[in-house]
């Protein structure tokens, strides 16, 4: 018998001098499985449809004289063409299903497919939000049960389920704080936010009418408690703190921060984007937090979907819970779950709600998935989630700190994400170049240039759903690219070389924005 693979090559090992992309040009611009796809507007026609519907019968209508006469300009495709168009497009995307997705603060973990199946059960997917409540008790129970576990996991008093995403949840929390302050006739003007915070924090505070001021940080990447205490006063409505913070560190002084803010009459908002590091291990309620949003699309694995939908329930302390928005669910003494809206809020002693943040009741499709996730993991599984997420991040940190500068590495372990800087890169090579080279290695880059407090920051969050073998491969790739960056390998400047596109001209896109297709023949 002959030996088929005499070189001993296997996937994941480099091949010297072998460049898969070299070769002759093709007539189509395609390269085997790398397929180009025209725009819908270049292949579709207004007279084509992929849905069988009856021909309109004409005659009278009751459209009040507003019936459309002009063409809209919406091209259609048959079903086979549609499936092919989107399947070909899909192959130009990187995704968790394809590989490790180490975006710091984004928690790109595996999305269990059971949850997709459950969300599509007709009793959840095919019910209308305004059906009589007696016909949707099961849906209300899902919301109530999820709410119960979110309160349990965070040690808080209540939860507002309706916010649509993290930033919407932040707004909900800050509006609760404002409503609570106004209720005691205490107009305050300032929200303190650390420089390392995600951009949504200051944007949210400003949207709610507050002036935003920085909280100073210590050299080791945490909130400077003494400086914070010195700034607190009767004008400070509250602080927004991310814990674990965006440097990947736990705010050791969180309880002392909360105590100081409370003593000064303010409230503590915690950005829960990084809850994955502590879920099942630490309850924010025990640290004096008054409000925290939970990104169900991060910690509780609902799919990111290329940028949404998200879901951002906000857990609230006893002091803020009375101000939470409508609607919400409540279980009565007989165990029946009710929908509490404007009309029956008084029956449930919830008369101080600050209002309504959205139509209907929130992201039901995310609630079913998140509840299935929590029940699947259970108390032991969720604790293991936090531990494995932190273990994986520390493994990456310690495996690479000899080749990449880890500014907070010496001060101790990180939480669920490892932070590196561009210190030591050869002149002229940047974090961006390294990130783009990681694309060629088959990875989505880590979060770049965030947090702003570290020069050329690279924030790596592997999550708990990566195996050791997957981490070892990633570490090998990142080590190789980091060494090339330090050695001044000029080819990094033009990376990626093997992706569906080379670097895109973002300056041109912004200078002369083309935001919709215009038929060249019509121009």
């Amino acid at each position, binding site marked *: 018998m002959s030996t088929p693979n005499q070189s001993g090559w296997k996937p994941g090992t480099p091949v010297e001098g072998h460049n898969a992309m070299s070769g002759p040009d093709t007539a189509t611009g395609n390269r085997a499985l790398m397929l180009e796809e025209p725009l819908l507007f270049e292949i579709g026609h207004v007279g084509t449809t992929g849905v069988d519907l009856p021909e309109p019968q004409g005659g009278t209508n009751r459209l009040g004289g507003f019936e459309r006469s002009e063409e809209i300009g919406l091209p259609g495709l048959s079903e086979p063409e549609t499936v092919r168009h989107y399947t070909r497009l899909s192959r130009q995307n990187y*995704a968790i299903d394809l590989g490790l997705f180490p975006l710091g603060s984004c928690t790109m973990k595996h999305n269990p497919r059971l949850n997709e199946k459950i969300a599509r059960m007709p009793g959840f997917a095919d019910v209308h939000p305004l059906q009589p409540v007696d016909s949707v008790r099961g849906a209300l129970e899902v919301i109530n049960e999820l709410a119960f576990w979110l309160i349990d996991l965070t040690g808080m008093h209540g939860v507002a389920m309706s916010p649509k995403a993290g930033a919407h949840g932040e707004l909900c929390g800050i509006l609760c704080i404002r409503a609570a302050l106004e209720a005691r006739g205490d107009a305050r003007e300032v929200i303190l936010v650390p420089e390392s915070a995600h951009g949504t924090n200051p944007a949210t505070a400003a949207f709610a009418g507050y002036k935003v001021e920085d909280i100073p940080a210590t050299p080791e990447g945490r909130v400077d408690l003494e400086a914070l205490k010195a700034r607190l006063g009767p004008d400070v409505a509250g602080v927004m703190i991310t814990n674990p913070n965006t440097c990947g560190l736990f705010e050791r002084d969180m309880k002392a921060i909360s105590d100081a803010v409370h003593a000064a009459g303010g409230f503590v908002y915690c950005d829960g984007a990084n809850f994955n590091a502590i879920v099942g291990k630490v309850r924010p309620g025990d640290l004096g937090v008054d409000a925290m949003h939970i990104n169900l699309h991060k910690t509780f694995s609902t799919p990111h979907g290329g940028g949404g939908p998200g879901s951002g329930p906000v857990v609230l302390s006893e002091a803020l819970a009375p101000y939470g928005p409508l609607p919400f669910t409540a279980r009565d003494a007989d165990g029946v779950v009710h929908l509490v809206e404007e009309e029956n809020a008084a029956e449930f002693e919830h008369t101080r709600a600050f209002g309504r943040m959205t139509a209907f009741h929130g992201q039901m499709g*995310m609630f079913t998935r998140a509840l299935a996730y929590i029940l699947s993991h259970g108390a032991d599984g969720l604790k293991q989630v936090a531990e494995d997420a932190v273990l994986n991040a520390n493994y990456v940190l310690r495996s690479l700190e000899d080749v990449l500068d880890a500014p907070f590495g010496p001060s101790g372990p990180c939480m669920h994400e490892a932070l590196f800087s561009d210190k030591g890169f050869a002149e002229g090579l940047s974090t961006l170049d390294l990130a783009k080279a990681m694309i060629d290695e088959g990875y989505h880059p880590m979060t770049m240039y965030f947090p702003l407090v570290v020069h050329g920051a690279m924030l790596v969050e592997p999550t708990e759903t990566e195996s050791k073998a997957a981490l070892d491969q990633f570490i090998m790739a990142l080590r190789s690219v980091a060494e090339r960056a330090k050695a001044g390998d000029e080819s990094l400047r033009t990376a990626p070389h093997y992706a569906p596109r080379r670097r*895109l001209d973002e300056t041109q896109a912004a200078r002369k924005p083309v935001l919709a297709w215009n038929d060249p023949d019509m121009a």
Partner: protein
Amino acid sequence: MRYLPLTDTDRSAMLDVIGAPDIDALFADVPEHARLSGPIEGLPMHASEMAVEKHMRRLSKKNLAAADAAFFLGAGAYRHHVPASVDHIIQRGEFLTAYTPYQPEIAQGTLQMLFEFQTQVARLYGCAVANASMYDGSTACWEAVAMAGRVARGKKRKVVLSGALHPHYAEVVKTMAKFTEDEIAGAPPSLTAKPDDDGLIARIDDETSCVVVQYPDILGRLPDLAKIAAAAHDKGALLIAVNTEPVALGAVTSPGELGADIVVGEGQAIGVGLQFGGPYLGLFAVRDEKHVRMMPGRLCGETVDAGGKRGFVLTLSTREQHIRREKATSNICTNSGLCALAFSVHMTLLGEKGLRRLAMENHRLACLAADRLAKVPGVKVLNESFFNEFTVLLDGDARMIVRDLTKRDILAGVSLGRLFPGNEGLANGLLVAVTETTTEEDIETLASALEEVLA
């Protein structure tokens, strides 16, 4: 635990590399008082796929699914047939499990789809530019009001809401305005056959930054947007048109063509499904390109790569929170990407021809239903004009009647009592929505049942 790949052998090997004696050492920065000693209390231990599915199925069975009833609900969420290929495509892992396309070289699938989506929405709305989606129609409506304030540079603070705007949308606007000091002028809807366009126009003054009008309105009627736009522009105000049923725009002229400056709406009806209210899809477009830099949310634009090939990127991000922080046009970050994909795929399958046919089929069945219900003693059809949803006035409290009929597996519509609680004058109103999923048999079932309960 099936979602966690590390073995105990892996864990101890990794701790060795890290140089930590045990996992607790990695949590050293968490003070002792904050650490739980064991698994969180109350929550059961991990469960198998079978066990979780069984629990969730039991809860799902407690709901009456629309497919199992004669179904007539609308009021901002509509039940349409979604072709099977839509759900197949949105479940492809490359779309489902991708992140926001911040690395365009490996996100052209999502980006090209968003560019196509923006174009579809802009054309449907009769606008120049649409963004890459918002959370839902109600939040898009508020963002439009906030944008009108930016266009007015804070010099005009009055926002005129049509009385026939979806009450949840009006509540969201009022809630947010409490914190931005905009003055909201609302009004209850009046049960008239035609919308009170003149009454609305009379409320616009020199202090008005924008007028918000729903089209078709909450009672299903079609306001004269062109007339309202002219009046608004006369006073230097913007017209914000709100559409909660995009299928209607296959039958009637788009708000942009009628002069609306900002057009927002709910896109759920195309591709997304009912899902008990979310996730849905906020649509946001501006008629004139000059307003683009005031828009909230993500925008996808065309450009070229270093090799000269066409490609797409997220652009004009200097409006957004991750660059501008407290000076951003909105705090929105995550949007409704996957719902935008569902909308776009469904719209591609329909095409113009399919959308128009779908719209006319909806309208035909709605006319049929209106005529049949008008014959029921104790039922009066209010609307002079409508698309696929109209208001009927019943001899009795509509909310109670809806509850009664639910027991017979008839979901008769959305009562105005549910939408406008406490407004006694509206208590006998019922919104009836009819789509291509409604059969003539369903219409007969509803009519006969009403005949019985109203007798």
